[in-house]
């Protein structure tokens, strides 16, 4: 026995009064070594109890226990540890009975007892151990078989074992389900009988079967029509040699769903690819360093290069001169910030600049880590051109609206100037007649004849009375004064109006925003003076670098909107509304506030009022570009246009314009 072998427990069942060599049994076995533990019991009942408690490897039974010993042998037969029977009597019956009752061995307590017993016991222990071991192996094998059975039963593949003659030896439940045959009918049948007749790939399958006797074959996908009204399904077919007896394993793996999924995936991929390849927007994927990973054809067009040429190049080559675009994309790459609809430009190596609108989103890998960014952008060249055109058109439309009001304002002074001119011509004719009489009087005076002088003086007096010369002189002067004033009014109106038909050209200039607001309020004010009380509350403002004409257009839009909001509210009731103009200094900039007591804007419209072409006005009254144009003008100045409104109460628009570093610098001499 080696060290690793466990201790052997031997139980001796022996009557208390055992005599002779039998009395030495415990001593003999005790000499076998520390590995053999010996215990003793004095009755068959105690022995049985001890054995049932477990841990006993061998029982040495003294047949001297009489009938109890025989019962014990029967009880342990087949279930317990081996039993070595010992007896002092060499009688053949006793020994034969012991074997018959299940004793593994029988030892006669003769003179050799001390030598024979250990040999027999050790041999029994070895056998018992071997038996136990074999039991464990068999159990393992049984488990393995059970596992195989479970797999074969549960696997979602149709399996069939075929004999060399292509006859089916066994099928699994999936096979019977798929081909609607029961296992009993399948066994022994040929494959031709089981697989539906007329099945197209059957011949091929049988061909494979022949091949498979030589080597393992695999048929990627085969569409089998199970017939019997079931829909066609796709299978992965595999034939494998099982053993040297020529048995084959046929595996039919249903890949219909996988195939459909693959097809759907392919379709989806094609669909996405179609969109990406054909979308009007440019789509660009960059890695964390800003290197181009993908560019769709539109992006390739804008960046002017094929994908192969663009891939790996840094997007900063195009965005480097545009701080804002670069800054935004960098934030997306660094912090994962999304942004949409930012305007920036792409600069080509040639120096050519293309305006773009760009939206960025971080790109995440499968593990959720940021691996880059997706940018979608549009070439805004055409839109910018159109916008320029449209905003010009819009301005013209606004001017058209103004024209009616302005015409009235010009018409009034024109009306009285014109009438006054006619009248002054009449006055002049009267005065000329008077002057002629004065001439005649002078001639009379020259003659020195008093009668003639008197007569001419009377005639002069009469004519003077007739033409009402005092009145004519006074009214001539008054008409002249009024006409001058009228023409001055017209001059102002025309001057103001002219400013709106001009474009800002070139750079920003230093200008007084209050002045811009006032000029605008003057011209718009004329058309609304009957409906609106204009209140001004101006705070002194620093001059800022801006596009004054564009700002005037913003103010005009806000004023016209305010006016229309009031008109809508008061109708022709004769009531008036109020527009309040404020200029304010704000931290980092200035603000112009236009508030009105008009109908207000419904909350649901508020988010859309700055959208291009959004209008609630009738056709013909503006194109819905006023506020969107204003918004982009204010944005161009780096400012903000905010709105608050309450239906029925009025609206408040605030234009915020930031002071730039230029504004605080010493102002250039004009």
């Amino acid at each position: 026995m080696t060290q690793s072998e466990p201790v052997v427990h031997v139980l001796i069942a022996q009557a208390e009064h055992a005599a002779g060599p039998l009395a030495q049994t415990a001593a003999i076995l005790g000499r076998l070594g520390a590995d053999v533990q010996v215990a003793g019991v004095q009755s068959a009942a105690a022995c049985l109890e001890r054995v049932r408690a477990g841990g006993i490897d061998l029982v040495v039974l003294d047949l001297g226990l009489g009938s109890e010993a025989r019962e014990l042998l029967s009880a342990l037969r087949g279930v317990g540890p081996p039993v070595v029977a010992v007896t002092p009597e060499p009688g053949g019956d006793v020994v034969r009975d012991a074997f018959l009752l299940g004793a593994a061995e029988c030892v006669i307590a003769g003179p050799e007892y001390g030598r024979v017993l250990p040999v027999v016991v050790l041999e029994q222990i070895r056998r018992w151990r071997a038996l136990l071991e074999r039991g464990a192996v068999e159990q393992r094998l049984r488990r393995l078989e059970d596992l195989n059975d479970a797999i074969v039963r549960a696997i979602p593949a149709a399996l069939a074992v075929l004999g060399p003659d292509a006859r089916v030896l066994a099928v699994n439940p999936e096979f019977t389900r798929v081909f609607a045959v029961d296992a009993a009918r399948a066994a022994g049948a040929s494959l031709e009988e089981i697989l539906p007749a007329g099945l197209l790939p059957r011949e091929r399958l049988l061909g494979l079967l022949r091949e498979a006797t030589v080597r393992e074959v695999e048929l990627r996908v085969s569409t089998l029509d199970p017939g019997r009204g079931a829909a066609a399904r796709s299978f992965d077919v595999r034939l494998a040699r099982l053993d040297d007896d020529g048995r084959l394993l046929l595996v039919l793996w249903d890949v219909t769903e996988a195939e459909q999924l693959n097809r759907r995936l392919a379709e989806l991929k094609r669909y996405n690819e179609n969109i990406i390849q054909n979308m009007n927007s440019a789509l660009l994927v960059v890695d964390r360093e800003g290197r181009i990973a993908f560019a769709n054809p539109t992006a390739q067009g804008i960046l002017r290069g094929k994908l192969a040429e663009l891939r790996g190049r840094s997007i900063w080559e195009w965005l480097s001169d545009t701080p804002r675009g670069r800054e935004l994309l960098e934030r997306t790459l660094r912090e994962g910030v999304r942004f949409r609809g930012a305007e920036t430009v792409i600069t080509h190596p040639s120096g050519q600049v293309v305006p773009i609108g760009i939206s960025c989103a971080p790109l995440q890998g499968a593990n959720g880590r940021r691996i880059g960014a997706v940018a979608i952008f549009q070439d805004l060249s055409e839109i910018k051109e159109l916008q320029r055109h449209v905003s010009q058109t819009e301005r013209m439309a606004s001017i058209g609206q103004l024209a009616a009001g302005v015409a009235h304002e010009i018409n009034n002074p024109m009306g009285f100037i014109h009438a006054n001119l006619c009248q002054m011509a009449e006055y002049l004719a009267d005065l000329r007649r008077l002057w002629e009489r004065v001439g005649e009087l002078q001639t009379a005076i020259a003659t020195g004849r008093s009668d003639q002088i008197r007569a001419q003086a009377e005639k002069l007096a009469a004519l003077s009375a007739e033409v009402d010369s005092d009145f004519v002189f006074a009214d001539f002067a008054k008409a002249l004064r009024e006409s001058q004033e009228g023409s001055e009014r017209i001059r102002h109106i025309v001057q103001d109006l002219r400013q709106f038909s001009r474009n800002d050209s070139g750079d920003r200039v230093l200008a007084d925003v209050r002045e811009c607001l006032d000029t605008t309020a003057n011209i718009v004010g004329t058309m609304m003076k009957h409906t609106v009380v204009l209140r001004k509350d101006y705070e002194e403002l620093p001059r800022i670098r801006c596009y004054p004409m564009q700002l005037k257009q913003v103010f005009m839009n806000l004023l016209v909107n305010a006016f229309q909001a009031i008109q809508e509210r008061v109708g022709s009731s004769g009531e008036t509304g109020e527009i309040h103009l404020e200029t304010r200094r704000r931290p980092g900039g200035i603000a112009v506030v236009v508030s009105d007591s008009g109908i207000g804007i419904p909350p649901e419209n508020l988010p859309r009022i700055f959208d291009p072409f959004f209008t609630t006005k009738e056709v013909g009254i503006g194109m819905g570009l006023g506020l969107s144009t204003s918004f982009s003008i204010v944005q161009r100045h780096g400012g903000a246009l905010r709105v608050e409104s309450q239906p029925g109460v009025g609206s408040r628009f605030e234009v915020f314009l930031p002071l730039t570093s230029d504004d605080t610098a010493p102002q250039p001499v004009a």
Partner: protein
Amino acid sequence: MSTPPVAPPDSQAVQGGGVVLVVDDETRILSAVRRSLRREGYEILTAETPVEALAILEARSVDVILSDHKMPGMNGLEFLALAALRRPEAARLLITGWTAEVPARDLTALGIRALLAKPWDDAELKAAVRSALTR
């Protein structure tokens, strides 16, 4: 059709007929119209607002009402409609800088005798008032 006897435009004779009410929110217009009609011998009343004009009509009768169209509170058409309720016998004339703004339909409906454009022609104005007085 017989043409009504009208005095020649350059007639210096002060004619004794007619009270003319001129309504316009622009005082310079009032004074210019007064000048234009100075030699026509009418009694000329002026009002700067429709409300003021209606007060005058409450107080006395006039022969001709010459009203501007674009005025605060109410426009010329509205005013003339109210004026007609008070003085149906008065001839009504409308003067406006934007003649296209006033539908001919409204003019007929309100019995407005003439629509004059602003700026007006003196002779035309005089003729219109005279013609209104002879009817």
